[in-house]
């Protein structure tokens, strides 16, 4: 995976746009861009959760290994989505794998930097967590429906 300082033009993402301008400015110094090739891992189960990803293009499969069944994707996320909330929750280790399905482009924060900023500025931290919970909530709702097997 490669990372770089993003230009102002590419610093757009639904997650950031839902925050106030002043809050975006506080976050901007920590924002970096990345690309991942198909098959590349953004996160590996059990390893340190070092980043918080904002996906701009491409798709990321979140999944786990199931013995002989191999790497099984549970859910795929795409543009406008985020990947990773393990960076908020001790002991800060990924709970699932996250692997690029196709070429993925996006933005990321280093987990330690973002945690420290949110701890120092709890107003900002609360807004970041509110946006994160909105993502978790919609992902959880979709997972519950997936589990209900309503398609028959």
């Amino acid at each position: 995976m490669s990372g770089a300082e993003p230009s102002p033009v590419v610093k757009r993402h639904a997650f950031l746009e839902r925050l106030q301008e002043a809050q975006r400015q506080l976050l901007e110094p920590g924002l970096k861009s990345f690309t991942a090739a198909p098959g590349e891992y953004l996160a590996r189960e059990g390893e340190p959760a070092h980043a918080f990803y904002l996906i701009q293009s491409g798709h990321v499969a979140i999944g786990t290994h199931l013995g002989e069944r191999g790497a099984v994707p549970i859910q795929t996320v795409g543009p406008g989505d985020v990947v990773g909330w393990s960076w908020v929750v001790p002991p800060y280790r990924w709970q699932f794998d996250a692997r690029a399905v196709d070429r993925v482009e996006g933005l990321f924060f280093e987990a330690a930097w973002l945690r420290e900023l949110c701890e120092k500025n709890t107003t900002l931290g609360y807004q970041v967590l509110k946006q994160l919970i909105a993502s978790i909530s919609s992902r959880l709702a979709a997972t519950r429906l997936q589990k209900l097997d309503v398609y028959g």
Partner: protein
Amino acid sequence: MDNELRSAAPVVRESAPDRSPWTPAVVPIVDRRQETGDVFTVTLAAPDGYRFRPGQFNMVTVFGVGECALSLAGASDEPTLRHTVRAVGSVTRALARLRPGDRVGLRGPYGSSWPLDQAAGHDLLLIAGGVGLPPLRPVMYHVLQRPDVFGRVTVLYGVRSPADILYRDELQQWAKQPGLKVWVIVAQADVAWRGPVGFVTTLFPALDLNPSTTWTFMCGPEAMMRFAARLLEERGVPDERIFLSLERNMQCTVGFCGHCQFGPEFVCMDGPVFSYWRIRHFFTIREA
């Protein structure tokens, strides 16, 4: 409130051919195709003068067994009638055993249709779940024959697993058309599956949606439609531009027996295609 839309929508109700609504025509099966493990498509010869609009349904009789409502899954201008059916009940299981040359009873077409004329000039978002894709397939044929009439067309199709995907070849063909996007998402993937995984609503964050010009047609499990409609409203799509097709126990098809009653509506006559605005109150009422 968009009064013009609400008074106009929906939906065109076509009259059945000029015979008693309870008298079936007897027509032969001209083709049969197995789509997935328990889903098949039967093609029937159309009676003289038969015409339907996308979204409507027929009542099909397997003689000696019974009758069931089946949505029309072919193009509205083709000379035969296609029904894609999951073999789940006594009639559909019996239908699954019939072969070309066997005869069935046919009443129809019945019910309301997708408001394609009203949606002309706008973006279309089609959301299907499981065997909810067949009632939307005539819409796709309509769109493909009129590529300049609609704006951007997006198809979101959710199924249980890759083995349950209907019309796989056609989906691939549709995806190649300019201005048309097709996303298939499975709830349970295997290692070989390279596409999206999740519930159909998982695709929503990536939707490039213009709420002011998008008309949404949905067919699938009611839980899917309920959650999808809610998310679309959150994205700003007006409820009078969200249409859904309901499935109920339809028997008489003329609003007489009441088996298909849904609040004050009869799904056989007033539906199966409804605007969400019209039924949203009843759509969220728990049945028990």
